[in-house]
């Protein structure tokens, strides 16, 4: 169990968050530096974001961010005037059918992944070692972000091609043979890279691909450990405690570290320490405050945070100079976790698809 945070640590973190909220809201609503989308939106507000938002709690004035606002263009309306001179990327999420949600990014993914890098133990993620990026490619943030993470730590990232939109189509069509063939194709690419003598010690992958890779290696008398991987950064889809316990006990064994993460294109990366048997393999995620905040709120009243240890829906706030997302209701639910000494703010554990969407959503496809 991670040490709990002291009252002083919690207060300092909260003060820092409030100051950050003031800075970011002013930036996005200042006519000189602000984001066109928010400046236009402000015309319909019955409050003045420049004066009335002074702490994190004041963000309730904005109601809830709707991710449908991110569908369609012009995407430039999301670029803050104060950063218009910079080069921009666009990352997409969803989009198997219809128009995907788009987020513009300049440096945020680098900053987020550099912050995440600080949470990785060097013993298992050695500096200067090379990485395998075994996850979704294309117009998603992950490919560039993992590559930057590898570079930031002094290594090179080897990548595979994986199109999750095609995977979702295969599932919806019921083409399970094709799904298996596509997964085999992705794992074939990973096996080739791992066999090519590139001294790969670290890997990003998703739970399903980690299963598939470990199973393939095992069928060939090898293992994750035997091919030299010592650190796995895992994310992209839901992970249960049972899954991570099974993976650690049966596929990884001692000597391989797995860092589960929670996040998406709209936020940075919420990190977790490696789950342990002592703690029943609980996976508790902590957002990179003050740049992103995760709250667990009552299923029936999104204005109310649940008590510690209680379940609720995940609400996300992103606060960076590039992107302001106040109080977005995520498609997930989880349990509110106590602040820890390492992360002196609320966390979330037991993350799984929000019960009202779970039956209709195709999740965990890659």
């Amino acid at each position, binding site marked *: 169990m991670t040490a709990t945070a002291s009252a002083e640590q919690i207060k300092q973190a909260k003060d820092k968050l409030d100051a950050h909220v003031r800075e970011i809201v002013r930036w996005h609503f200042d006519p000189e530096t602000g984001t066109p989308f928010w400046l236009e939106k402000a015309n319909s507000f019955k409050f003045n974001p420049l004066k009335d938002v002074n702490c994190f709690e004041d963000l309730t004035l904005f109601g809830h961010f709707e991710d449908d606002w991110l569908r369609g263009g012009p995407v430039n309306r999301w670029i803050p005037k104060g950063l218009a001179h910079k080069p921009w990327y666009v990352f997409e999420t969803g989009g198997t059918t219809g128009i995907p949600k788009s987020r513009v990014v300049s440096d945020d993914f680098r900053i987020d992944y550099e912050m995440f890098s600080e949470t990785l133990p060097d013993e298992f993620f050695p500096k200067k070692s090379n990485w395998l990026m075994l996850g979704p490619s294309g117009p998603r943030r992950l490919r560039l972000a993992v590559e930057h993470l590898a570079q930031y730590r002094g290594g090179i990232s080897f990548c595979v091609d994986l199109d999750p939109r095609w995977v979702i189509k295969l599932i919806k069509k*019921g083409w399970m043979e094709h799904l*298996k063939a596509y997964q085999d194709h992705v794992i074939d690419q990973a096996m080739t890279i791992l066999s090519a003598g590139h001294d790969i010690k670290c890997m990003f992958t998703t739970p399903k691909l980690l299963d598939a890779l470990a199973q393939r290696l095992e069928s060939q008398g090898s293992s994750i450990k035997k091919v030299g991987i010592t650190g796995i950064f895992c994310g992209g889809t839901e992970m249960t405690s049972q899954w991570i316990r099974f993976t650690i006990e049966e596929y990884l064994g001692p000597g391989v570290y797995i860092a589960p993460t929670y996040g998406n294109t709209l936020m940075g990366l919420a990190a977790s320490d490696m789950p342990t048997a002592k703690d029943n393999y609980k996976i508790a995620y902590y957002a990179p405050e003050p740049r992103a905040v995760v709250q667990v709120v009552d299923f029936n009243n999104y204005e109310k945070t649940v008590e510690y240890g209680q379940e609720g829906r995940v609400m996300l706030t992103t606060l960076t100079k590039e992107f302001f997302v106040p109080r977005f209701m995520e498609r997930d639910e989880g349990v509110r976790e106590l602040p820890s000494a390492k992360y002196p703010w609320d966390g979330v554990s037991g993350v799984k698809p929000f019960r009202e969407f779970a039956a209709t959503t195709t999740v965990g496809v890659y």
Partner: protein
Amino acid sequence: MIHIPILRWGEPYTSLETDKVVHFDTGEVLAEVSRANASLVSRDMRHAQRARDVLREIPIKEVLQRVKKAADLYTDATLPLGDGKQSPEDFVRMQSATTGLPEHMCRFNMKKNHFVLSNMEKILDSLTRGLDLEILSRGWGVESRGVPVSYQAQSPVLGMVLPSNSPGVHTLWLPIIPMQIGLVLKPGPQEPWTPYRMTQAFISAGIPKEAIAIYPGLGDVGAAVLKDCPRSLIFGGTATVEQYKGNPRVQAHGPGFSKIVLADDVVDNWPKYLDLMCDSVFVNSGRGCINCSGIWASRHTKEIAAALAERLGPVEPLPPNDPKAGLAAFTVLGQADGVWADIERDLKSPGSTHVTAKYGDRLVKRERCAYLRPTVVHCASPEEPIAKKEYMFPFVTVVECPEAKILEAIGPTLVCSVITENAKLQRQFLDATHIDRLNLGPIPTIQLNWLQPHEGNIVDFLFRARAFQFEGPVHA
């Protein structure tokens, strides 16, 4: 509270995640079941071949003896259940409490399973058309007329994605172990009882535990079973059947749309067949795919519907331990409401008449469950939207249709009981490929002959008959 673990080739494994199995009426938690994860299933399949190997180490005749012993243990013994024990009466109560099936029907299903296990030798003899079972075991042999034959197992294990609502389906997988093929079972969430009890009976009777794996879990576990077992059975709705149509790895069992046809030469004597029709609709609370959901004739259909309604309409829900209880509860919240809303929508069609309406409301809602009382609908033509519907309770349409059009109009049918002495009509029904099981004559749809295959022969599904020649001694 009893904890039921995952069984990984007989070895109990307690998951960090569990599901509670609750009493449909009282809400009492009866057991906590470990929830498997999909990758655990996939990883375990590396031992699938061992399941067949350990079974083949025992002579097939001896396996059949042990299965016979397992039949008695299943019905009579107190057997281990997770970290507890379960007597036969406990089993009946638990199965009834979670599936909504009245207790006497659970006892009946137990007897049915016992019968199948006890008569396995005869059943396999019929399913294989008299093949020496050693040929299934060895993979080859020589027929009595001196011709070499080979039956090659297509999978060392059979995967089963089982349903919650119909304990009757378990008879389908009982012949698997006797054929020396391992079992990979994903129980229905409300019916973990039969797979566990049968497994314990098998193990206690000397079947190697390494031959059976049980993986309770969510949809991902079912998908893993289908993905990783070269041969599987799955139970589901029409969509499931459609999804796996033409997939040689999967045999999908869905609604039966079973029917009775009263031909023109017999229909004027329809009252003679009223008992047969009632039983076909009502037995086992109408839950089986072999229950009749459509009665077709060219005339007297209104009288037939009225007579069925008079017999079945007054039936009320009774407590599950009442020996007269004929209706099973819908234990999944909102399911009965959904079914009834669907029926009401179809009844708006002017050619459809709800004949049981005068016997009171059909939807009976309780605090934690609901019942649907027997429902008879008259359809003026096969084009009525409700004419070919099937639901999981005693529901039947009586459809008026000229005899010459019936065969084409009935659509896919699992069991068809055709009552006629008209030779031409008998020939047409014999030749019809959209009918699976054909009963010629006054036979209820629910009457099974255990020596006949059910919806696809399991032997043909698991073994491939192929050419085989040999010269000199064969030691395998």
